[in-house]
């Protein structure tokens, strides 16, 4: 069996959720890997856009930030925030946003702002950036998280970005026209959200992981009754990811 590190399996897991023709709104970090791997393997017609205004760059080299010159090279159009954030929310297109966060709750609401009281936080994070905008307006959102009890919490310290709010049809009632979290990709597996209740459940778990490990690392009750094993990364997926997409291991980190 092929050997891989957590970030590799996360990038591949997320990449598989991208369909050909999707417009992918990528952030920094693993999401750029996922989008690039998908484009090179099974979704060549997918388009990657960045909130900064880089529309469909060639991504010959991996950008380290969404403002990197590498998101401005070989693009279809170089624009700005207003244009990019318009495209993310455009009703005509199926757009998939990739986000990370410091905390997530059972309905996929995200905190990327602070731990502790907002006015005198224990820890301050960068803030929304375009995350709240993307989760407010994109057709679907995929969230990357490290899976532990501190991050998968009963109650967020601060709600930066709107997921399924309080579940059920609360998101629609609030005024959102579409979207919401589609999946959460962690170092343990793939979580999805129930069609009716919008509560998070375990959909797939990686080799070497048990559903009980997911339960043990989640602060809220998470349904594991629908969980199936994740199909391990193929040699081809790993080769493209590690040799073509991030050969310097800028985002992947140290190898096995």
């Amino acid at each position, binding site marked *: 069996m092929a050997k891989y590190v957590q970030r590799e399996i996360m990038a591949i897991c997320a990449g598989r959720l991208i369909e050909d023709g999707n417009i992918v709104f990528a952030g*920094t*970090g693993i999401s750029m890997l996922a989008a690039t791997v998908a484009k090179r393997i099974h979704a060549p017609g997918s388009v990657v856009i960045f*909130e*900064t*205004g*880089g529309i469909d760059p060639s991504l*010959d*080299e991996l950008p*380290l*930030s*969404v*403002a*990197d*010159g*590498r*998101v*401005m*090279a070989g693009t279809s159009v*170089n*624009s*700005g*925030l*207003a244009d990019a*954030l318009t495209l993310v929310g455009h009703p005509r297109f199926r757009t998939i946003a990739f986000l990370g966060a410091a905390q997530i709750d059972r309905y996929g609401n995200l905190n990327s*702002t*602070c731990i502790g009281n*907002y*006015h*005198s*936080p*224990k*820890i*301050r*994070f*960068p*803030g*929304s*950036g*375009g*995350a*709240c*905008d993307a989760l*407010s*307006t994109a057709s679907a959102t995929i969230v990357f998280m490290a899976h532990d009890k501190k991050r998968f919490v009963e109650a967020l310290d*601060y*709600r*930066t*970005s*709107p997921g399924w*709010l309080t579940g059920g049809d*609360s998101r*629609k*009632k*609030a*005024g*959102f*026209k579409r979207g919401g979290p589609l999946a959460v990709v962690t170092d343990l597996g793939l979580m999805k959200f129930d069609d009716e209740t919008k509560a998070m459940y375990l959909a797939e778990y990686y080799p070497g992981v048990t559903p009980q490990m997911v339960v043990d690392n989640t602060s809220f009750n998470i349904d594991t009754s629908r969980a199936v094993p994740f199909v391990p990364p193929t040699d081809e997926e790993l080769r493209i990811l590690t040799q073509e997409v991030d050969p*310097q291991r*800028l*985002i992947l980190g140290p190898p096995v």
Partner: protein
Amino acid sequence: MDVQAKMKNNGKIMNLSEAASLVKDGDQVTLGGFTSSRNPMALVREIIRQGRKELYLVAHSHGQDLDLLIGAGCVKRVEIAYGAVARFAPTAIRFRKAVCAGQIEVEDYTNLQMTLRFMAGAMGLPFIPTISGLETDIVKIPGFPEESRGMGKVSKYKLKIIKNPWDEEDGNVVLLPPLNPDVALLHAQYAGEDGTIRIKGLTFADLEEAKAANKVIVSCEEILPTAYLRQDPDQNSLPHFLVDAVVQAPFGAHPTSCLYFYDYDPRHLALYRKMASDDAGFQRYLDEWVYPFDTQEQYLTKVGMEDLLRIKANPVLGYKPGLDRR
């Protein structure tokens, strides 16, 4: 020459010191660029040297410029969507420390919200709607203290939520206050002698910021003859009359990038990260990299030819291919 007199004469081209002196204590300031790209660093370093105080930053996603201004004690209050410099500072270091220590007032918005607010300011609108942020703490929790509300440039309300007036059953809408900052500080690749600005690559929210601001100061890599810029006006970004001051500052965004001129400087950003992580180290950074220089040329001498050439961009690609960014 007296700076004000120079401006009356339409002499927009000035040096760093003259341009920075147009920023006053307490001004509401917006910064061009985005996290690791085209930060107006030469202007920011000069503003720090001039000891500007109590600035009120209105920012979307900012990193190095914002972090240096906050760390140097120039900032009282910030409206912000995101403070970071890629993986060199996953949260902007001095920003994080200042917020946790309660040294600055901070109020969070989103990138789209901030961009819309600049657009509203530029258009003279009383407010601008969005659905972004509904039911989040961004719309529920104001950041600034109650006593600041309605004072100076602080909006009376952070924002307001109303029912969709077209269909009250169709949920809510967020109304955002406009922004008209006192000053916009931008770094561009090119400026004409008359103030026409040409930005290459992504414009982020620079154009909206410049149109919203009451005063626009632009540093640039090269000042070009106006007639040359007018031969290809499709390439130009801002008309001359919007711009009040132009400063030639080569590598003026260093250590952030400037497309077609240079990449971000991974070694300098890593050095900054290390030094800024404790108070004494940050003071040493200011003493070594900000205070000793009167001009951009002196700063570049300190950076050194080897490091500048290491990040020099490929003129076709716009960045430095193969740059060691670990």
